[in-house]
């Protein structure tokens, strides 16, 4: 088991390095650099090119790619990702300051998504009316297809601007979390519901369910006592992807609702070619993926004792 975890951590380190390197290359190849953007002041300004060149050299942006890379990587290994080019704040600090906001949003969004998604799936599976069942089952694809951006704007329009129940902007208090979390939860719950509906359908067709039914178990007992737990396993496999979805959704949700967070930070950092901040975010996102999938693999055996992750991995 320990060897297994150790190996997975090594693999994780490789993923982090690869993410760092690839994003470094992409950012290097993208046209435009932070210093000229800053000097332009968004208008037809004419800062002395010599001054711009001087600033670029202060940030080491004029060095050859391999030199920039080696220096940056060496520092990154010591968790020093450099300072934000736009305001001189340490990149890790800029990210750490807003990370809790995104965690709050993602956690609330995820909890809502699990509730909504499971509710939908159970409703679809429970319903005896075929018409209702199909209607409920057709909701998840809709939820996935509708752009998150649009969902956010609709929620804003009705619950904030029209009914004035929730604030349209900011991160102050639980009230401000409701609409952004809901925006995030809708597409995610659709994914969960779709997976769960399919997997519940499959599970309910298993012979052992017939057996339980024959023993006189009620529909509710079959669902909640037996089928749901087994049906949840394939959904669990997708947890890594769901977390990725949440992070991507945070970009949109945080922008629409003017919340601070790593989604907003990513947009502004990419737009201003603030390489140190983007790199920090990329490595953070990669780390989240690595850790989530490791956790998922480790909790499989707890949900289903038939699965032995470590043994299977070494086999």
């Amino acid at each position: 088991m320990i060897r297994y975890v150790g190996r997975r951590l090594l693999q994780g380190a490789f993923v982090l390095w690869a993410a760092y390197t690839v994003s470094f290359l992409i950012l290097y190849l993208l046209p435009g650099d932070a210093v000229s953007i800053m000097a332009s002041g968004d208008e037809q300004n004419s800062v002395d090119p010599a001054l711009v060149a001087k600033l670029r050299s202060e940030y080491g942006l004029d060095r050859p790619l391999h030199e920039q890379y080696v220096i940056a990587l060496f520092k990154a290994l010591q968790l020093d990702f450099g300072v934000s080019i736009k305001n001189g704040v340490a990149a890790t600090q800029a990210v750490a300051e807003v990370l809790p906001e995104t965690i709050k949003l993602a956690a609330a969004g995820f909890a809502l998504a699990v509730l909504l998604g499971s509710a939908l799936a159970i409703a679809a599976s429970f319903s005896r009316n075929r018409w209702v069942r199909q209607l409920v089952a057709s909701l998840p694809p809709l939820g996935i297809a509708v752009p998150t951006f649009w969902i956010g704007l609709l929620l804003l329009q009705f619950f904030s601007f029209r009914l004035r129940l929730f604030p349209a902007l900011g991160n102050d208090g639980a009230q401000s979390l409701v609409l952004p979390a809901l925006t995030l939860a809708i597409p995610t719950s659709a994914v969960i519901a779709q997976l769960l509906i399919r997997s519940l359908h499959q599970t309910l067709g298993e012979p052992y369910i017939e057996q339980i039914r024959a023993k006189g178990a009620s529909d509710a007992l079959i669902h909640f006592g037996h089928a749901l737990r087994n049906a949840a396993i394939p959904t669990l496999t997708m947890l890594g992807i769901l977390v990725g979805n949440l992070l991507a959704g945070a970009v949109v949700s945080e922008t629409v609702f003017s919340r601070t967070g790593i989604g907003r930070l990513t947009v502004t950092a990419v737009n201003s070619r603030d390489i140190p901040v983007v790199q920090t975010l990329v490595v953070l996102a990669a780390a989240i993926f690595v850790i989530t999938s490791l956790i998922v693999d480790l909790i499989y055996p707890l949900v289903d004792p038939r699965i032995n992750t470590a043994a299977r991995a070494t086999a």
Partner: protein
Amino acid sequence: MTRSNQPRTLPAGPIRRPAAVVGLLGTAALLLSACGGGADAGTQQSADATPVSGGNLNFALSVDRGCIDPQQVGNNDAIAIARQTVASLTSQDPKSGEIVPWLAKKFESNADATSFTFTLRTGATFADGTAIDAASVKTNFEAIKALGAKASLGSTYLSDVSAITVKDPQTVVVDFSKPNAQFLQATSTFTLGLLSPSSASLSEADRCAGKFSGSGPFSVKSYTVDKEAVLERRTGYSWPAATNTNTGEAYLDTVTFKIIPEAGNRTGSLQSGQIDATAAISAADITLFNGNGFWNETRANPGVVYNLYPNESTPKLKETAVRQAISKAINREEITTTLLTEKDQPAKGVLSHTTPYFKDFSGLLAHDPDGAKKLLEDAGWKEGADGVREKNGEKLAFKVTYWQSPKEVLELVQQQLKAVGVDLQLKFTTIADVTAAQATKDYDFSYGNLTRSDPDVLRTVFASTTARGGSNLREKLPVDDTLGEQAAALDKDARQELVDQGQETLIKDAHSIPIYELSTTISANEKVHGLAFEASSRLDFYDAWLSQ
């Protein structure tokens, strides 16, 4: 915070449609409520009401670049915050363009505009309590020079400074190696606003985070990047500019600048009272705030208007006739009437009409497609099979890379040019891509404006004699001398003549292809009063107050 700046934080594609949806929904909601209210006007309540002190004003901005240091920032959103935190040596009358006293009660220049003497008023202090004296002016200007390219505006204003001399505690002399008639106006801008000398030694991060001690009517209370900046009234402030009506402390307790990147959210938040004012309502939504409990006020930004700048180092755009034809083919009136608000104006020259020394050159900018065709025919550009003109197998096609909204402006120009056989190829992209294209000089036309309430902006943008070499990337021409002489002319009439002459040449030879005047519109709840534009069309919150 001009409307041009809004949808920058997200790629333009996905935003546009949903934003329009909200716009529509918003319109519908407004139409419903509009049936009840009969208020009209939609202009700011007259100034005769007596200002009351107190309250917090929520003002929405669309972008936060993570820095609010007045001496560093260059984009309009950051300027809206930074302007309030500093007082400047002088101020500029928005109506006459006249430079008037602020921290300097007296200022004069020598005859050839190379030496400027400022006599400071007594009693003014920085927020940390130290006196605003001649030595602090020297420290500030030297600190700005040391910031280099980080002080994107200040470094250009001070580029030729040769010496700063403290004569006595109240008198400072700034000497230049070249004549600098623009310098007096520069001292009225926020970017040469004064910070406490102790702020000069702060780290860049601390300065950006607003930990400096300013000299203006407001101080930074808190600043959270991408969220909000809260300014609070400076107690004891009593050194207003001659252009303000208020004479004591600011009326507002606090001003909260909230960052709202999404245009639909700004519109809805203003309608629902979650913010009190903004200058970032999209052109399509602006009429929602004409009356019905709101007001709009629009002012064109002074300076060089939105222009297509021909890259004259390319053979095709080196041809004067080609440039002239392109300028003639543009129907400026059609652009403002179909795409922008009723308050937006077509270019009447290289300078906008709010710029000092403005002169109306509309006669030279008339829409004349036939004249354009004739110029191109005579120059040997014949229409090809696809309708695009060509000469010696070379197509009359040009690339322009730009990010400025509304992107439809250049799309319309594209159609207008197509009508005379010119193919304008557009690439609407991010600022980063545009600055990259400009750095490598890989473009046929660049596009943009430069806000500055002084005609010297013509030289900054066009003269091949500047360090950057001018937007045309051309060799030196006589017009550069005219623009240079303008910078040395202190006499008003002499300067006017040189500015006119320079503008006329730039337009006639189509080094400048002006399109329309960038404007800023304040949209506000009717309880907001006295929120005004200063001469550079930046916002001034000092006179602003809220009715209860």
